[in-house]
């Protein structure tokens, strides 16, 4: 019994980790907390949904479309909204992205109303058995995607010139400029990548979650908790933080009360903020 609870928690953690990856990347590179993060997830989920509804495209196949689409949308959002205020105060970033959040929700509400929409694939409830435990396949796939995404990101940041430029800009902005790094271009790429990861997340979530205009807010709040817990800008921390929160939620859902499970991790969140705002693993700048 407890084993299953833990497994569920870990798999849930994979979801949370994947959702938070883009958020922590963007903060680590350019010190912006994107309050519209959840709405990009919502857009990716809707995109996946409509590709399925209109063209019968399997969500895992639609990754090939959704991810590049979100990459472009992310870069566009950066250019239009973030870049003009990149040097402004934190509060300006908060409210500008909050405004974006509301606008995107508004568009979704207007176009698709508040209905819950889901897709059912042949494997949505597929399960494999590991001894007494059962593991839901789509959730396992998400978990694996999370790990794959983190690894891919690590390699990209470590091995490519653009990746190194991103890390350099995150560590010492002025020095990076003195090396010839075009800062706005690099920020745009980093932001785009962050949103592309969100795109991946949206696509792989559709087999098991339903989409509605405010679905983004739910996930975003958790993402904030995970990111603060794991350390802003710390990619590995996003994975560990996600798993911790997933397990905490799963365990409190069973052993405390289902309605309170989110309350538990919010309280943990506030405690972490107060005791160690740099997160369990510290505010690691992208290594």
């Amino acid at each position, binding site marked *: 019994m407890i084993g299953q609870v833990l497994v569920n928690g870990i798999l849930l953690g994979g979801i949370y980790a994947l959702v938070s990856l883009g958020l922590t990347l963007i903060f680590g590179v350019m010190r912006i907390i994107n309050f519209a993060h959840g709405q990009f997830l919502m857009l990716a989920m809707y995109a996946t949904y409509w590709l399925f509804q209109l063209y019968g495209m399997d969500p895992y196949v639609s990754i090939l479309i959704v991810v590049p689409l979100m990459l472009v949308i992310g870069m566009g959002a950066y250019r239009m909204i973030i870049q003009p205020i990149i040097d402004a105060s934190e509060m300006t970033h908060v409210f500008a992205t909050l405004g974006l959040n509301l606008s995107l929700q508004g568009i979704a509400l207007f176009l698709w109303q508040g209905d819950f929409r889901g897709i059912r694939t042949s494997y949505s409830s597929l399960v494999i058995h590991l001894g007494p435990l059962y593991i839901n396949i789509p959730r396992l796939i998400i978990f694996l995607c999370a790990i794959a995404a983190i690894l891919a990101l690590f390699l990209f940041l470590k091995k490519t*010139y653009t990746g*190194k*430029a991103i*890390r*350099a800009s995150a*560590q*010492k902005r*002025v*020095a*990076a*400029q*003195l*090396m*010839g*790094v*075009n*800062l706005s271009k690099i920020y745009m790429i980093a932001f785009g990548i962050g949103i592309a990861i969100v795109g991946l997340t949206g696509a792989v979530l559709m087999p098991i979650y339903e989409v509605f205009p405010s679905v983004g807010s739910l996930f975003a709040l958790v993402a904030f908790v995970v990111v603060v817990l794991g350390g802003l800008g710390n990619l590995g921390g996003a994975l560990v933080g996600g798993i911790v929160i997933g397990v905490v939620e799963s365990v409190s859902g069973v052993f405390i009360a289902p309605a309170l499970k989110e309350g538990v991790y919010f309280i943990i969140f506030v405690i972490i903020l107060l005791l160690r705002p740099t997160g369990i693993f510290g505010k*690691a*700048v*992208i*290594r």
Partner: protein
Amino acid sequence: MLKVEAIDVYYGDLQAVQGASFQVGKDQIVSLVGSNGAGKTTTLNAISGLHRPRSGTIRFGEINIERRGSHQIVELGIIQVPEGRMLFPEMTVMENLEMGCYSLRARKNFKNSLQEVIRLFPILAERKEQLAGTLSGGEQQMLAIGRGLMAQPKVLMLDEPSLGLAPLVVEEIIETIKTIRTRGTAILLVEQNVFHALSISDRAYILENGEIVMEGKGEELLKNEKVRKAYLGL
């Protein structure tokens, strides 16, 4: 090679540099000396494209560069080694040097540049995989200069390379700067350590409150009473 003419640089409403004019030629070491807040770093940042001057011109050869972006300035071969070194602390020595080679022009010559830098600073080869933040002060300065050299600079600008370093290390750095000059690079040196700066400079300019108040050959200024006044208020 590099000619700065009457630039005015402002931070908001505050004027940091006023009417500064000087030039640096090939194979030359030119110094800008002055106390803290005199406007030296601001001048370098204006040349590097980090901060646009409100008026005046900066010419590199025949081109006007005062309105260019920082990445374009680097592509042209004007490289700054900033004050306090500003290494990438979580990147290895090797990665820092690679970043030095970021510009497209420099990337082509990566292997050669690396060899030259290692020849100049053999210790960097030993510390290749070490994180830059863990090096000693002197080693960091060498890495910073090495990183600058990786970019194959035509003009190399050094902002207070001797800051916070032990005297012996400073001597080494000064020697290195002289060696770099022999390779044909024009050097613009900004320093608080007046003696060292003046003793290796072909030409020097004294900056006070954003204005150039004195200029001349390095050796002559060394012997000048007024220069001592500027620093010791005699």
